């Protein structure tokens, strides 16, 4: 008990207390530089009635949801491949290969996606020189599509690893038993493998969905005006408009929305998690 206390106290002081402060701020208001400490719900009223905040919040949740879906669906076959088809001695190498790109500077990775997706970027110049298109395609940069592609790349290792770990834990004799009892490969996958891998899929989903909502860099660099998300507004409120209480309100609302959606998701998958 004594041993865990330094770490617990650190978390309490630097996480729990600050979160409580943000929560308190969301009920206060700011008039230029002085904070008015009378409790009020005005910030929340404004957050719910102003269409800017509503649009940003809705878009953030939508983008996070799509990113999560795309990332998990793309990552599952990879985890499955490494776990079931790669020889045991080479699994560590594959995992290492998958994680290396993740250690490139995050900022530069996002910036390079801008270069790849841009007007005369890699994709457009490649397609032009192959003669597949006559003029550069523009629907892949400075919009929500670009944000989805970039974030699906950024979170790839975070989804592959939990699913891989879950797949590795599956007792292979269960699959043989299923085949012996007359199931086809397809039905074995859907009735045995997938349900047993669900804890990994649920973990991967949460690991992508929760941080994505707070991503600031990607929407700012590749999102354009219609790809901005709630984190950009939180940053604007705190650092540019100097309205900490409104920023705190938006942060609290974003946290509540994410937590609620995550809980609902876990609730619907509860039978796999026992």
């Amino acid at each position, binding site marked *: 008990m004594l*041993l865990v206390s330094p770490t617990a106290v650190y978390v309490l002081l630097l996480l729990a207390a600050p979160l409580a402060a943000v929560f308190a701020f969301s009920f206060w208001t700011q008039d230029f530089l002085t904070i008015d400490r009378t409790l009020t719900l005005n910030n929340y009223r404004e957050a719910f009635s102003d269409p800017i905040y509503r649009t940003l919040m809705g878009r953030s949740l939508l983008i996070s949801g799509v990113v999560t879906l795309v990332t998990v669906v793309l990552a599952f076959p990879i985890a499955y491949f490494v776990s079931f088809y790669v020889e045991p001695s080479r699994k560590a190498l594959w995992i290492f290969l998958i994680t*290396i790109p993740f250690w490139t500077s995050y900022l530069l990775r996002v910036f390079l996606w801008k270069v790849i997706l841009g007007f005369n970027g890699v994709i457009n110049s490649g397609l032009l020189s192959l003669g597949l298109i006559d003029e550069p395609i523009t629907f892949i940069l400075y919009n929500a599509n670009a944000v989805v592609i970039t974030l699906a790349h950024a979170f790839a290792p975070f989804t592959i690893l939990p699913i891989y770990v879950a797949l590795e834990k599956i007792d292979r004799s269960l699959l043989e038993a299923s085949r012996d009892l007359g199931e086809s490969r397809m039905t074995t996958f859907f009735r045995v493998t997938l349900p047993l891998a669900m804890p990994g899929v649920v973990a991967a989903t949460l690991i992508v969905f929760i941080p994505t909502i707070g991503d600031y860099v990607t929407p700012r660099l590749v999102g354009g005006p219609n790809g901005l998300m709630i984190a950009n507004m939180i940053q604007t409120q705190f650092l540019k408009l100097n309205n900490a209480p409104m920023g705190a309100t938006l942060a609290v609302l974003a946290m509540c929305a994410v937590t609620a959606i995550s809980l609902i998701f876990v609730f619907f998958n509860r039978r796999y998690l026992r």
Partner: protein
Amino acid sequence: MRGGWLRIYAITYLVFLYLPVILLPMFAFNDGTVMAFPLKGFTTQWFVQLAGIEALHGALLNSVFIATITATLSVLLGICAARASTRFRFPFKAPIMGAIMVPLVLPEIIVAVSLLVVVVQVLDLPLSAWTVIAGHTLICTPFAIAILSSAFQGLDQSFEEAAIDLGETRWGAFRNIILPLVAPGIIASFLICFTISLDEFIIAFFLTGAEPTLPVYIWGQLRFPTKIPAVMALGTLMLLASLIILSVAEFYRRRGVARVGGNDSGGFL
């Protein structure tokens, strides 16, 4: 060749993963300021240019300072928590450990904003390298705990009991028996925390004082098209440094697993 279609898909996916990583050195050695194809010619001038930028050197030193302190604190806090959770039972263990691991999934902007509120509005302190360290330690500690827990978990309790039976004190047994056995895990977690802190942007962006960290400096440079090639060169060097640090970390982690006699299930993260 097993898993025909799946193998083709896996290789395509790896190409997708490596696309930006391959472009980084390509543009770093490209003799032109426009980031587009076709490439112009080979040059090392952007790397030479890096040596002359004073602001960059300051940012680099600042980042290394922050990363070193952060890694040290995270490993110390990580040792406490990992040791407590693997060796002892205490009341409210699950909720306490859960709370400690929360920063792993919390959006970084929430951590950044909440610390900013406390430091600036409540405590009225100036922002500095130390505020960044406070934030980085918070997000690095869970990573340290994850790596150290597996190191502590593999330990045979009888080693420690034998040492105490033979007259060592509790602290002596910990220092002479446990620490050497988990040393590889400590080194690995230190290096991982160091790398995470070095690359972290959002928290540093909110909490940094007058002296920027390396990622905050890079963020400022991305607005100027003429500065981009030098940033690409810098990125290439940072990628090399990360790879070296991580290879060393992986080497120690594997040695640690071998030392306590566990079997390797393939890499962290």
